[in-house]
């Protein structure tokens, strides 16, 4: 688009030219503001990568990313166990959080009377605002002792982390799913009801299938929250260095290992290995965004 002052240059001479000049400068400043986001993501990538280089060089890429042997006191920094911990807790949380979140969204969109729906919606917005240290503290003083007495284990561990993550990811999944359901054309519901379908049949056979892509995006963004959650998980997961396949095993995720070790890690290989964990987190997040872009393109094509 040409500058709006451009046409005036010929008519008004010098004054118009000054005006066009000013318009262009302002446009440039605004563009500068907008490009802060590009600059930020670049800087973050560069700095996290630069800081993790020493570990990759000195420890070796294989021993750093593909080993489960993590013993900083003897110079072993394998983070595979923590990558597994992140994936284990995240998928566990989605196993509970996705049905709960989507179910709540359906409840809001289809089942709940308006006043109750409004209360639930406010509640979910409030839940989204509760700081993660508060949820972590709640998990530490209530959830962990509860699991200890019920299961006879330490209480700390993967399952406690999963429950905390469900609470953290629930608002994201519910809000986005509810938005998707709301955006479906009303004719869909009416047509289904007119054919004599019950409410459940409409939900199950018409609404959920047509909202598929949107619901998938909601769950992926919920995963994003779960992968990145730090403080709340660190308070309940037990912070052991070993990888575990047990639901009640104590272990670490990428985020919790960074927080647990950072204070004691002097500048050097150990600290650099923690930055390498942040690099993996960054790549995981970018991966999720690319999947979302892909899914939403599918959605646009299918419409």
């Amino acid at each position, binding site marked *: 688009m040409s500058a709006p002052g451009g046409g005036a240059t010929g008519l008004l001479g010098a004054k118009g030219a000054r005006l066009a000049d*000013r318009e262009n400068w302002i446009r440039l400043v605004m563009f500068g*503001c907008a490009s802060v986001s590009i600059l930020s*993501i670049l800087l973050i990538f560069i700095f996290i990568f630069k800081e993790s280089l020493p570990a990759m060089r000195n420890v070796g890429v294989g021993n750093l990313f593909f080993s489960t042997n993590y013993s900083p006191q003897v110079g072993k920094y394998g983070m595979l166990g923590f990558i597994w911990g992140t994936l284990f807790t995240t998928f566990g949380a989605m196993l509970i959080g996705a049905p709960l979140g989507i179910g*709540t969204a359906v409840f809001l969109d289809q089942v709940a009377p308006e006043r109750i729906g409004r209360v639930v919606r406010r509640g979910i917005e409030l839940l989204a605002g*509760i700081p993660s240290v508060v949820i972590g503290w*709640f998990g*530490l003083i209530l959830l962990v002792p509860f699991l200890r007495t019920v299961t006879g284990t330490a209480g700390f561990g993967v399952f406690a982390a999963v429950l905390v993550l469900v609470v953290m990811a629930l608002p994201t999944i519910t809000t986005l799913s509810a938005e998707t359901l709301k955006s479906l054309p009303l004719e869909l519901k009416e047509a289904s009801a007119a054919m004599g379908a019950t*409410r*459940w*049949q409409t939900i199950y056979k018409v609404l959920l299938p047509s909202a598929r892509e949107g619901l998938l995006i909601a769950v992926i963004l919920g995963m994003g929250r779960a992968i990145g959650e730090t403080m709340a998980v660190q308070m309940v997961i037990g912070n052991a260095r070993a990888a575990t396949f047990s639901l009640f095993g104590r272990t670490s995720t990428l985020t919790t290992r960074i927080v647990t070790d950072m204070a004691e890690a002097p500048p050097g290989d150990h600290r650099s290995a923690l930055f390498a964990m942040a690099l993996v987190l960054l790549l995981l997040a970018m991966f999720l965004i690319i999947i979302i872009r892909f899914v939403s393109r599918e959605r646009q094509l299918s419409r």
Partner: protein
Amino acid sequence: MKAKRADRIATVVFWALGGITVAILAFIILEVLGRGLITALNPRFLFGKPNAMASGGGIFPMIVSTFYLVALTIMISLPIAIGAAIYMAEYARKSKVNSFIRFCLDSLATLPSIVFGLFGLALFVTAFRWSYCLMAGACTLAILNLPILLRSTEEAIKLVPDTYREASMCLGASRWTTIRQVVIPSALPGIITATILPIGRIVGESAAIIYTVGVFIRNVPTNPFDTAAPLAGYIWARQAEHGVPDWRAIVNGGAALLLIMVFIIYFLARYAGRKYQEKKLLGAGTR
């Protein structure tokens, strides 16, 4: 009939799912407030100095740090967000650049806050030699909050009807004059509302600030380049390292206070949002 019965069962299940969500929230609020409210409202706790070793410390410098951090972060990020939102909404509505910027914003929005924390540590604290300080945390949080701040600002700007812009342009106003004299004033209440929710996130943020701002101080910070200790980070450090005999009471009280602060901000945002809506409706009616 089978279909009828399935429908009835499904209805019960959906009510139960909605109920579980509300129950989780209610349980957390009641437990956290129940354990910490009495401590949180004690003036000696609210306005006292924290102790490094002894019991009976307060959290006044932490509260000040939190407010200071919020103010600095908004001061840095709001102008950038408004500028960027104007660019995206007024200059480049549907361009390649716009879509790439949106990709970067989406990526920033999904990055874990601990990644921001380490980035802030590497850039502001270490490379810039600022050491742990409010400014380092504010710059980090400004980037962290940019996506949501920008999105809601942009929405406020887009809500300004195109007829306003057309009317202004018809009177011979240039694009910038239109934006400055017409678009921004009309969008301003929406922009103000848009800043309230990110404030709640800044108050509750801990992972991004413990390595940029600091976790313990005894005196109220004054200079933006002073080390400080926002409340959320301080609570986390207290429960991790204990340090004082009454750490449990401090964490309980701090958590309750944090919850109250976040709730006040939330209701403020709702209230402001509703006022804004009402005013818009009224405005549309009289015009």
